[in-house]
């Protein structure tokens, strides 16, 4: 008898609807699976056969054929096991076929009949909903994750017999349907707060400005000056994720298998800090079956590159394009994958090898050495760092200072206001933060009055800045004005923005 069970797989970060067709007919006893399968899918045959046996289902020898369609699409992953098993049972008549019709079945089987979790359930359930399915059977561990999709009945099962029981009992299904676990009270909890950072007034201010416009930030300073400490806290001053953004972030984590089963919705903004030995594939994503990299995991949050000059050149260069496009495109023979990469990059570095330049009582690096160290970072990448700020070594009194520091919530409320101003202003341009402005946008949205214009002209001549730097400074000045609640960019905004121009060549030497 022929049956059809719906299942899902993940491609990139999106779920894909797959039909599992099963036919059991007379002939030589055989179990064959077709449909352009990768080896882990082909192995499902053994897992399904033995788990059926171990779950107590006696199946008389017949010719079993399973086809996964569409047949021209390469099937990857282990999410079809449960669907294949249920399809076979339905074909043998153990299950009424119509009970499977409006469901999607997702899950990996163990030899004992247990249902194991799979990555990407959130994407798969989401895609199932779009395909018009009304309910999903998923592994128990992924139940909470699947339940994030609204208006979708999701049932978690621990083993094969449980799934069968669920399908056989008409009432049991309804009981399993859970409300979405999202509640507005589900506040992000970072466990860290800006009030813990003593001193570093300049660094904190630069972090606030960067967050307010989603500008990339470069921090330069001696070891132990608190660069990492500040970087870790930048997500805490970014406005909360909207539900849509939360789901988008969770989806990427789900595909990478990084969602904790008990708290599947990521309400915190991501903070990713790959080590400098990370390969470039792990940064932007890749692999034979492309998986999102750190850049995409940091989507809507912060990608922190500590010890920037220690990163291999190739790793940094591959970041350039995605930073511009706010997305990573990876092409393979079977198709191209698009991963979101809308994050702000925060980088930290020492001013020289030993870390103390220009403090000559401690730094013995020659001018040439300092320059060589800085040259490891390519100019095009530096050009993408909108703000550069130097962190001084912290004095003892600053560490000890007991004074009241601003909390993340206080800073966040200012940042949120700045965001709203930008959104409103840039609504016609199709972008939502100042950092995304291109030269054309800068001309439209960062107009200067005559007085400021002449001041800029004077400064540019004097400091010998490049045209690139000009746009960068205007963008940052725009953000500072937004934080200030001003519609016009004024002298004081430009002055501050110029203070963050940083690594212009002539200041190093």
């Amino acid at each position, binding site marked *: 008898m022929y049956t059809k069970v719906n299942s899902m797989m993940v491609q990139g970060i999106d779920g894909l609807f797959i039909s599992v067709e099963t036919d059991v007919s007379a002939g030589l006893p055989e179990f064959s699976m077709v449909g352009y399968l990768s080896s882990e899918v082909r192995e499902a045959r053994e897992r399904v056969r033995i788990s059926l046996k171990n779950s107590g289902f006696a199946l008389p020898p017949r010719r079993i054929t399973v086809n996964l369609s569409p047949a021209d699409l390469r099937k990857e992953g282990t999410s079809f096991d449960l669907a294949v098993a249920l399809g076979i049972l339905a074909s043998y008549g153990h299950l009424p076929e119509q009970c499977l019709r409006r469901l999607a079945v997702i899950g990996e089987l163990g030899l004992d009949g247990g249902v194991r979790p799979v990555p990407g359930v959130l994407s798969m359930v989401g895609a199932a909903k779009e395909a018009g399915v009304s309910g999903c059977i998923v592994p128990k561990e992924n139940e909470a994750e699947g339940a994030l999709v609204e208006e979708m009945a999701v049932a978690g099962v621990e083993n094969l017999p449980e799934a069968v029981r669920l399908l056989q009992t008409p009432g049991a299904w309804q009981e399993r349907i859970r409300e979405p676990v999202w509640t507005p009270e589900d506040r992000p909890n970072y466990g860290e707060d800006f009030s813990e950072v003593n001193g570093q007034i300049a660094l904190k201010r630069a972090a606030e400005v960067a967050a307010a416009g989603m500008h990339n930030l470069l921090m330069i300073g001696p070891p132990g000056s608190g660069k990492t400490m500040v970087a870790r806290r930048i997500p805490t001053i970014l406005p909360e994720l909207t539900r849509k953004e939360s789901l988008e972030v969770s989806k990427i984590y789900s595909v990478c298998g990084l969602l904790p089963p008990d708290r599947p919705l990521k309400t915190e903004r991501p903070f990713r800090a790959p080590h400098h030995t990370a390969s470039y594939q792990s940064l932007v994503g890749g692999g034979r079956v492309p998986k999102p990299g750190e850049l995409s995991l940091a989507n809507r949050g912060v990608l922190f590159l500590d010890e920037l000059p220690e990163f291999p050149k190739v790793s940094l260069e591959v970041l350039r394009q995605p930073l511009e496009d706010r997305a990573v495109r990876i092409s393979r023979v079977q198709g191209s994958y698009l991963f979101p990469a809308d994050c702000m990059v925060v980088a930290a570095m020492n001013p020289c090898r030993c870390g103390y330049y*220009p403090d*000559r009582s401690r730094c013995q690096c020659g001018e040439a050495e300092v320059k060589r160290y800085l040259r490891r970072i390519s100019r095009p990448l530096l050009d993408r760092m909108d703000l550069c700020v130097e962190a001084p070594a912290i004095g003892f009194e600053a560490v000890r200072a007991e004074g009241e520091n601003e909390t993340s919530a206080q800073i966040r409320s200012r940042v949120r206001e700045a965001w709203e101003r930008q959104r409103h202003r840039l609504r016609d341009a199709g972008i939502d933060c100042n950092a995304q402005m291109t030269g054309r946008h800068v001309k439209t949205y960062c107009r200067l009055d005559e007085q400021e214009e002449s001041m800029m002209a004077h400064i540019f001549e004097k400091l010998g800045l490049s045209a690139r730097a000009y746009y960068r400074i205007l963008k940052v000045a725009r953000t500072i004005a937004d934080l200030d609640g001003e519609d016009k960019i004024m002298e*004081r905004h430009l*002055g*501050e923005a110029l*203070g963050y121009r940083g*690594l212009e060549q002539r*200041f190093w030497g």
Partner: protein
Amino acid sequence: MTRKEIWYWMSGLSSWGGRTIQKLLKEFGSPEEIFASKKLPVTPAQQEEADEAKRKAVTFPEELRVWEQQGVRFLTQDEEEFPKRLAGLPDSPFFLFVKGSLPPPGPAVAVVGARKCTPYGIEQAEFFGRFLAEQGICVISGMALGVDGSAQWGALRAGGYTCAVLGTGIDVCYPASHRQLYEELEKSGGILSEYGAGAPPLPYHFPLRNRIISGLSDLVLVVEARKKSGSLITADWALEQGKDVLALPGRMGSPLNEGCNRLIRQGAGIVAEPEDVLRALGREKQDRKEAEEAELPPDEKEIWDCLGTDPKHLEQICRETGWEVGAVLLILLRLEMKEKVRQVGGNQYLRIL
């Protein structure tokens, strides 16, 4: 073979130092005799190099002409133009390659110091270069990184005369990053070297060229020096040549001031104000156009007062004044535009003297 060509022959012998030439001169009496002698009392390697070069002697007039075309003069001590100050020294160079112009008669001060110096050192060196140039005093130095180069830039910017004595061949720009300074010196100052075409920056060249730096000057001013520093060698040469040595005092315990402080302990003059240098030269301060201390607006004054000659970080300025970062940055920018303040490193600032 003219005498000049014979000197040129000797200048091309990298294995022959001043000492060898001196010894041979004493023995043979004149350069011509040395050139004529088939067997010299020198090491086989030196003899071989000399013979090799002699064989090419026919091309010397042509080579000298090519040098001339490239703007390089070959001066020997027999010539009228050869700097008088050098000619009087016990170990005077016998010949010099000269690019640009020679130091004009009149007072000259050598400003020397560490290559890896502090922003304070850079600032002081540049200030003294400018100050001396404005007083019509020549600035002699070594075109090195750090203090030397900054002093020469200062003098050039003030439109004064400055000359660099190189430890490399006259046509070698060392350090390479000073190409612009090298060209500027060629245009409006002078470059001297006792080494010929393409001589590399060998370590022993530098202590020797220091005797020319001190020899050309009336006074040596050491800005910043470590305990073991080439600048101290210049100071030693100066004392040997009977010139004054002045040093800029520095903080106790700072490695970059150790050399200077030690010099002062040993009896070098101390520079507590710029005029001290003039006094040591026995000169009065010429009415240097007193830069009208234009009254700064109160906000700029407050920030300016907060700064010193050592770099101070934005952070500390904010803490000391209690101002907001943005406001401080704006004032600093204004001061920078007025050339009252300079930004060093990332967000550190110091006063310009």
